[in-house]
């Protein structure tokens, strides 16, 4: 049974924060929240300076999968790429956050019926948190292929403590010089009896989707989409599906089966 969010947003306190390479890892106490399932997400907004900053942005809360959830505590990871993530990345211990969640549908375990498939995690960049949470939930130290832009970003792989990690960087400064999908292609060629769990930037996710379809390997993709609410109200976060129309990433996902999806747009958020 999917964990259900308490009704409404709740005010939580940031307990610590840390730089991990290019990323900011923030812990918050969440005594009233249920234990979430890997791949679920939260809508976050700073209590102060949100909707009332110099240029009145950020205004809407932002969606983030959690990185880690222990009893009464949540961990998130941000990269400063815009007004919302900038505000979240500058939070320090004692600051307050509005939190709504956990929301959406998370990752699902491999179907136990034969053929047995090993979980294979592939992703990168700011897509690492839900994969890290999933590796922890699986508890089997799965293999994880993670792609990053450069050394500074690749330091983010350190949060993936419960998997056997192989890193690729676009500039070759750490690990494989190239794209994570090259590692994934080699891995699937070696042993196609896998189920791929993926999260990452749109272009990477699309490459993973196409590769898994080509190899006839099942894949669950944790999608990102610009969304205003996170609970199905705004209809802003849709992606096209193969049987026609759209699904909402927030309530039908964020984790969706790759074979349901149309090719993913690069800029749909």
């Amino acid at each position, binding site marked *: 049974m999917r964990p*259900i969010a308490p*009704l409404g947003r709740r005010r939580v306190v940031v307990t610590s924060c840390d730089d991990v390479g290019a990323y900011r890892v923030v812990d918050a106490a969440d005594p009233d929240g249920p234990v979430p399932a890997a791949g679920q997400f939260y809508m976050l907004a700073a209590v102060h300076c949100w909707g009332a900053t110099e240029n*009145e942005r950020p205004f809407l809360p932002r969606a983030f999968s959690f990185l880690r959830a222990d009893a009464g505590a949540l961990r998130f990871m941000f990269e400063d790429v815009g007004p919302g993530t900038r505000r979240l990345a500058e939070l320090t211990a004692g600051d307050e956050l509005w939190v*709504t969640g956990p929301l959406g549908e998370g990752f699902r375990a491999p179907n136990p019926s034969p053929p047995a498939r090993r979980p294979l995690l592939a992703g990168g960049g700011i897509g690492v948190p839900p994969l890290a949470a999933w590796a922890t939930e699986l508890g089997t130290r799965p293999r994880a292929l993670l792609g990053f832009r450069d050394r500074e970003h690749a330091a983010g792989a350190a949060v993936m403590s419960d998997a056997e990690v192989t890193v690729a960087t676009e500039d070759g400064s750490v690990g494989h010089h190239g794209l994570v999908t090259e590692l994934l292609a080699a891995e699937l060629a070696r042993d196609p009896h896998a189920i791929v769990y993926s999260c990452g930037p749109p272009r990477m996710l699309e490459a993973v989707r196409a590769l898994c379809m080509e190899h006839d390997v099942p894949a669950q993709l944790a999608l990102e989409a610009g969304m205003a609410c996170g609970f199905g*109200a705004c209809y802003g976060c849709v992606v096209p599906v193969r049987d026609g129309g*759209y699904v909402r990433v927030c309530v039908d996902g964020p984790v969706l089966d790759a074979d349901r999806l149309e090719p993913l747009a690069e800029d749909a958020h």
Partner: protein
Amino acid sequence: MIEFCGLQIDHPIINGSGTFDAIAARRAFGEALLADFPFSAFVSKTITLAPRAGNPPPRLWETAAGMINSIGLPNRGLAGYLEHDLPRLAALPVPLITNVMGSTEAEVAALVEAVDARPEVAAIELNVSCPNVKTGLDIGADPVSLAALVRAVRPLTRKPLIVKLTPNTADVAAVAAAAEDEGADAVSLINTLRAMALDPRGAGRTWLGGGSGGLSGPAIRHIALAQVFAVARRIAIPVVGMGGVACGAHAKDLISVGAVLVAVGTENFRDPCAGSRIAAELKSLQIAESPSSSMNAS
């Protein structure tokens, strides 16, 4: 309790059409949603005769103090609404207002007749922010088109008929007066203001998949205030005011210029319980300012 078009409701705060999906929210928040439902009446998203998938993404753009949406009215169509959505919405603990839109009088008439036949529906709201197929103008932008539409559908239902006005018109009060003259029971305003966003990569390309969209949020609150003021002065039927309401004081402002009910829209996205919060804040403000309260204070 307050009275609105013959409906008895708990407090003056409802939702704007298309800003809260009670069915999806129940999936997200469980039965707690029904126990503490944020609104005193629930307005459905817009239902059209045929199903609509909605606009291609991207559908959203955050602005200074607001957002632009270009959702495109996705819905299951009338048959899907009656079969799938209505039984679920009927389980809500508050009266249900069903919002409908059609591009011809015949379409709107079919929608109104079908919804009128359902006892679960307490009232009908007409979304008139839809182009007239003959003139290309939004029906709600033109008092003559609007009058013709209301005249055509008014006899088809005895349920309260609310006309949701568009702010994208020269004289919203004239449109409101046309609705009143043709027998509407109430008007609601404002809908979103037509707006566009540019692709940040430049080249003057529009960002939203639907081309243009509608601006909402705090950015439009004072436009809402002006339009509700103008409409409430002009007509005698009840006015549902909305536009950028984020707290009790904002709701109080709209009530002070003539709104009977206040709808919350974009703030629901930021705070799923905005409706109940704003209702409580409004109540505290009204108690603090009531004559008996000031006597007690002295």
